[in-house]
């Protein structure tokens, strides 16, 4: 959108919808991958959100939805942003039907705030993405997940209803308040992971789970990627039902495989004994003492990149774990980079933190990984990196033969290409 057209909208126009305090000129801190928006608006109701989107649509403003902004750096740099629509004030818990294990929340509610409310009924939303302070809407839009996905799945398995504001301001919902429901298309899944490119998520309905009573952690120190893979496979194909099976490889030799077993005391005790027997064939295994557990998981689950580094998310087949670990070590070495690896091993998700190089080196590494992983079943996504890096290598990589169909979906939902232009796959 050219400056002159943006100039047709003033901050007062937005304020007339949401009130004086809730629309402002954007500051430097609001930039998305270096692209500066003009305004930030915080609608307080679905109606206000709809009116804001309608105005943006009429004036052709490019819109970036934002929750807490924890993943605002995901995806490619946007081609343009005029308006940030923040869900910060859409943060209400609308309903917690404890007897039905269902909750309905506005998109801007922070997951940790929601969990506190649910915990009163000994329930939880079984999502545990690492980004502290993330909103439920942002988690849906980014399809963020954490280690518990092994047992509970990801957003697509837990989201049972959604309300969105389309780019033209239309409010639409799909799904409902019951867990079992096949009426109509499952738009919740379409919006999951769509990174704000199809509209603004305003309300979500979730299926909940009881909070497990107790847990034990079994840890095995292994010497090689092969042993790590073997330990993970032995747990995966057992009748045990761990909540997480994680691999942790802070340096390029050895690795730790850890399983969190949750449930009721007798079950957890028996399962941890079995897990110990299975994993000790592959390395030095033990059940952690109670006072070690919190510290161990804090380290093991720490995102393997810091603020200045590069973060990659690899999706691959779980049996490929040894190859992935080896490949990451070798490729990092060839490119003069230092890797740190953690992963939700039994699901095939591996997180790689890279440091010690420049964008040239990071880009070369990503390309090298993609040549091997991306050529079969799998993906390498840059989840943290400078805008310069993401101009050298696409944040998402290739998506295959469904890209034209994805473009058609985008074209139907957002014919003016107003929502987060350029940030998603294939330039969507």
């Amino acid at each position, binding site marked *: 959108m050219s400056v002159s057209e943006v100039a047709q909208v003033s901050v007062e126009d937005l304020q007339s919808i949401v009130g004086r305090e809730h629309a402002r000129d954007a500051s430097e801190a609001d930039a998305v991958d270096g692209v500066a928006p003009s305004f930030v608006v915080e609608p307080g109701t679905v109606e206000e959100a709809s009116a804001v989107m309608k105005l943006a649509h009429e004036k052709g403003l490019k819109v970036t939805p934002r929750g807490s902004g924890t993943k605002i750096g995901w995806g490619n740099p946007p081609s343009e942003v005029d308006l940030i629509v923040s869900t910060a004030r859409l943060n209400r818990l609308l309903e917690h*039907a*404890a*007897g*039905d294990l*269902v909750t309905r929340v506005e998109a801007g509610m922070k997951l940790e705030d929601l969990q506190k409310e649910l915990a009163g009924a000994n329930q939880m939303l079984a999502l545990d993405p690492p980004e502290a302070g993330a909103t439920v809407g942002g988690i849906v839009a980014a399809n963020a997940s954490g280690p518990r996905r092994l047992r509970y799945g990801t957003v*697509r*398995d837990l989201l049972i209803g959604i309300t*969105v504001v*389309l780019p033209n301001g*239309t409010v639409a*919902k*799909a799904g*409902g*308040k*019951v*867990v*079992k*429901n*096949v*009426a*109509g*298309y*499952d*738009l919740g*899944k*379409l919006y*999951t*992971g*769509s990174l704000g490119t199809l509209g603004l998520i305003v309300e979500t309905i979730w299926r909940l789970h*009881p*909070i497990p009573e107790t847990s034990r952690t079994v840890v095995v120190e292994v010497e090689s990627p092969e042993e790590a893979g073997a330990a993970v496979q032995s747990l*995966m*194909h057992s*009748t045990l*039902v761990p909540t997480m099976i994680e691999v942790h490889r802070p340096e390029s030799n050895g690795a730790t495989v850890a399983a969190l077993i949750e*449930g*009721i005391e*007798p*079950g957890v005790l*028996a399962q941890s004994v079995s897990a110990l027997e299975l994993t000790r064939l592959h390395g030095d295994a033990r059940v952690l003492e109670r006072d070690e557990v919190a510290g161990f998981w804090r380290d093991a689950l720490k995102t393997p990149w810091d603020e200045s580094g590069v973060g990659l998310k690899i*999706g691959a*087949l*779980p*049996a490929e774990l040894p190859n992935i670990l080896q490949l990451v070590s070798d490729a990092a070495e060839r490119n003069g980079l230092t890797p740190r690896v953690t992963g939700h091993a039994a*699901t*095939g998700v591996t997180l790689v933190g890279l440091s010690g190089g420049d964008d040239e080196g990071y880009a070369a590494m990503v390309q090298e990984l993609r040549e091997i992983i991306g050529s079969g*079943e*799998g*993906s390498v996504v840059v989840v943290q990196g400078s805008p310069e890096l993401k101009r050298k290598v696409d944040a998402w990589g290739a*998506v295959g*033969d*469904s*890209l*034209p*169909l*994805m473009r*058609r*979906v985008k074209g*139907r939902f957002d014919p003016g290409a107003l929502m987060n232009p350029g940030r998603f*796959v294939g330039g969507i």
Partner: protein
Amino acid sequence: METATLVERMRGILGAEGVISEHEQLRTYECDGLMSYRVVPRIVVLPETADQLQRIVQVCYEEGIPFVARGSGTGLSGGALPHEEGVLIALARMREIVEVDIPNQRVIVEPGVINLWVTQEVAPEGYYFAPDPSSQLVCSIGGTVAENSGGAHCLKYGFTTNHVTALEVVLPDGEVVHLGSKAPDPPGYDLLGAFVGSEGTLGIATKVTLRIVRQPETVKTLLAAFPTVDEAGAAVSEIIASGIIPSAAEIMDSLSIQAAEMAVHAGYPEGTGGILVAELDGPQAEVDHQFGEVERICRENHATEVRVARDEEERVVLWKGRKAALAAMGRISHDCYLQDSVVPRTALSDVLKKIAALSDEWGLRVANFFHAGDGNLHPLVLYDERIEGESEKAHELAGQIVLACLEYGGSITGEHGVGEDKKHYMPKMFTENDMNTMQLLRCAFDPHGLANPGKVFPTPRLCGEVPGPYKVHPLQKAGMAEMF
């Protein structure tokens, strides 16, 4: 295109044995599991390969001919009801299990493969395919995907959509695309998630990648008899409130019990008004402990008898009555009409009272058996079509029941799909804007509305800005549909 020419074109693709065009033979395909709707298709084609299927769809696209995909034809909402002007594509000859990948817990199959075959294939390795609709002995995976089928065990393990990770799909324009991935979290829109449960309106799956699940260490089943169905329901609520997620929790009311008793002679205690079949699975020590809790909760809620299966044989016996309930209805009623609505679990008791009141009001008996854990009711309206007007009355009563479920925040269908049968209830559950938004998805996949047209949504809608060879839609020309 003349039917004769169409038959020729299809024979060119499939050979003579792959095309059915004789009226009597076509009638075999006039309905699916919902026999109250019948339409004879123009022709039936039976592809054996994905390539043939693609070429069939290409012909349909070029000529603007509607097509309907059909698996085993067991659907209960008329989803595979043929289109009278259209081609019915029967997938029963695409039955190869393409790949079994135990290390990665995946199986890849063609759409005509029978649901239960997947479990049979991987059982020796200690695995199974979780979605288990009651028709799993005969229903196809393609149909399971199209309908997002559930089953008795989906309370704990989820629905088909949670167990499909990738699809190869022929789009309505004849293009082949791959949705999802065998590996986790492929970048891009989750079109796989949008496709599963779309009831054949977005294209036809030619290859399906399934997630298989490790068999539990143990399974324990009990049957508890209660004086009333309310007490059975209260027991389920208390079980779930205690933090236990049973792998199944099925309730039958007195009419269903009566029918099941006649069929399988289970010997339920005299005066039983509600039966609960509950199953727990998982690691032995956990299940043993929780099973004790479930037994205790049943007794506290006035169960008059609790039977525990000691082995697999006894487990089958406990399930037999529940599984036979539907088929057994013929013993107590000449005809019956099955519904599939859902209510929040905590509303079950109120909704059952409402159904009883409606049943009295309309003077027709209603049997109830349901998946109590997830609030999925299968009210069964009993009637006799030989009595003038009773069939219409039964359908109207069933409609009233659906509306009652919606009042309590429920859904018009939990697992059977909308199809032909429930599309007129869609506006009761969704607004015009909701349905128009769903239609955007449809238009991206099928701008000409050729894939299973007329299903799911109540009024035909057309998509604007249609590229390609297709001209003004006949419905639009006739003023019967609006351009969307």
